[in-house]
């Protein structure tokens, strides 16, 4: 079995924690697929299986006050940022107990307490938001960092380039994390970019940028810590290109006509979970019962989350028009339909 690059794991407990974080995401995503197949979840569903090391590694470098902006493939980011699996699944069920009261769904998970700003289903749409969050911190003199995750497909969008330039021009405390899984739906990177070295593009904006093995959670964490520390201490924006791969289809509707099965299986040999497992086992740091205990804990967490979602209540239609505009301060939670809004929006 192959192992992660960092052969020496100095802190066994920490490695175990990272392993657990990745397994939590993996099991949540597997459950999502199962629930989707059972028609409990609808809409678009994009899972993160294969890419867990990226979110797991980067989140380790963040403080509670930092902000996270992500994409529609964000269940794992939300979970590892502290949104409960129950609130995530309940959201996908369209329940009032969901983290967005059923308004967002799989692609739009938000959580104010976790400073988790979505969940953005417009490719590259989150980058300017991250720049602005960082601008607010800079102007207010706060030492916070905003981390923005996006796929390599976003690199072709104008908003990517506008955001790189603004962040660098104004030296903002933002860390861009490009999850380069080589495909944007069915479009391979080489078929959409004249220059496929993405870190190089960011460097062209005078942003410190480098590529990282996104299958090696220890390497990701190390790079993220280095980058976040630099950003926090006033070093301006940083950029990580995290080289990874998605093992599953783009979404539940993707027949995967654009890549060979053998390519997928080759990448699966570098599964970030089994890589770390292998390294730990080789070093005698992962006894069988430790692993069994870890997976049992995670399974219990996920089944409790499913129970929470199952027992939730559909978000009430009587509150359909709520959250179009802010509730008036004195309304005590009364619905505030837009002055001119009719009921036309009722049909989802």
């Amino acid at each position, binding site marked *: 079995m192959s192992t992660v690059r960092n052969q020496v794991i100095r802190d066994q407990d920490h490695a175990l924690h990272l392993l657990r974080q990745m397994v939590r995401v993996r099991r949540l995503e597997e459950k999502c697929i199962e629930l989707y197949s059972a028609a409990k979840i609808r809409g678009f569903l994009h899972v993160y299986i294969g890419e867990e090391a990226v979110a797991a590694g980067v989140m380790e470098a963040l403080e509670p006050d930092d902000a996270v902006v992500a994409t529609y493939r964000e269940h794992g980011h939300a979970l590892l940022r502290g949104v409960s699996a129950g609130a995530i699944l309940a959201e996908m069920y369209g329940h009032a107990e969901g983290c967005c*009261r059923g308004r967002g769904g799989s692609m739009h998970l938000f959580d104010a307490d976790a400073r988790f700003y979505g969940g953005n289903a417009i490719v590259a749409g989150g980058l*300017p938001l991250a720049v602005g969050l960082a601008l607010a911190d800079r102007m207010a003199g706060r030492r916070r960092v905003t981390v923005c995750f996006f796929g390599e497909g976003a690199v072709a969008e104008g908003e990517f380039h506008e955001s790189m330039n*603004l962040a660098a021009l104004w030296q903002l405390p933002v860390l861009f994390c490009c999850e380069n899984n080589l495909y944007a739906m069915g479009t391979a990177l080489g078929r959409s970019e004249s220059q496929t070295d993405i870190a190089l593009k960011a460097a062209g904006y005078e942003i410190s940028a480098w590529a990282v093995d996104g299958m090696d959670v220890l390497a990701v964490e190390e790079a993220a810590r280095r980058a976040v520390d630099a950003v926090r201490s006033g070093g301006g924006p940083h950029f990580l290109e995290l080289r990874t791969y998605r093992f599953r289809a783009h979404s539940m509707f993707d027949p995967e006509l654009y890549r060979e099965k053998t390519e997928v299986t080759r990448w699966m040999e570098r599964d970030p979970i089994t890589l770390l497992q292998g390294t730990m086992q080789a070093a005698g740091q992962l006894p069988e019962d430790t692993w069994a205990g870890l997976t049992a804990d995670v399974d219990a967490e996920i089944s409790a989350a499913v129970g929470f979602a199952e027992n939730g209540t559909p978000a009430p239609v009587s509150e359909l028009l709520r959250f179009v*505009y802010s509730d008036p301060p004195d309304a005590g939670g009364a619905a505030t339909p837009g002055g001119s809004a009719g009921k036309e929006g009722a049909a989802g």
Partner: protein
Amino acid sequence: MKTTYREAMRAALRDAMQRDERVFLMGEDVGSYGGSFAVSLGLLEEFGPERIRDTPLSESGFVGAGIGAALGGMRPVVEIMTVNFSLLALDQIINNAATLLHMSGGQFNVPIVIRMTTGAGRQLGAQHSHSLEGWYAHIPGLRILAPATLADARGMLWTALQDPDPVLIFEHGSLYNVAGELDDDAGAVDIDKAAVVRHGGGLTLITYGGTLPLVLEAAALLAAEGIEADVIDLRTLRPLDGQTIMHSIARTHRAVVVDEGWRSGSISAEIAARICEQAFFDLDAPVERVCSLEVPVPYAKHLEQAALPSVERVMTAARRAVGTHG
């Protein structure tokens, strides 16, 4: 105090910047250049480059950054040179600013103000002359303002900044040089209600923004012909204040809507539809509309003027509305 629309706008910005340190202005050429329409002239010297923030030509980028800054606790005023260029930021305005509160189940409101110039009349051709505020008024989650008077140019901004949700302010390019008297202590005004700015009783002329001056001129000329008109300045295009409109029509029984936007699928269409829904039995004549002709705004002066609402066209529509029923 004698002032202009431009100066009133600038006074509003200065006042907001002084009163709330979270407020800052950001946009293309708002600083060193002084604002493409000179609204922010002098503010850079007064407040410095952090708060009068020049941006690159990146409409989507800096509008999105304004949304992010609003999420981060600031009160950004983002200036887009004209509504035409706001199309490059539509993604941020509509997919983010207008939706985040709802998508997040009420967790993330976006207290941003976005100002832009709108409208034709200055021979700038089709890419600098369109009136697209009616489009924006289609979008739930946004509040759309169209200050037409000195008092509103001075007073709407502060109130907009108190709104927890995104507000778009449309400043018609032909208004900046309008001069007049403004109370020395003029300050914040409401951004909910339409205003009846002339009381007649014979018919109701409904308009907003850049066409208010010509509608008032038409109303004065109509009065000389014995046709006394209520003139309603909508002020806010979303949410629309239907009450003020219907209240007037209940007395006048006739309505003419004047809108520099195109007729098809426009805010004037929305108003006419609501009148039919809510005041049908009050009407003594079909609702009339005076809009821009359905053509990209042309350059040549005579063509441009022929495409836009005019005093003459408003008067003709008004006479028809009054004459339809004896």
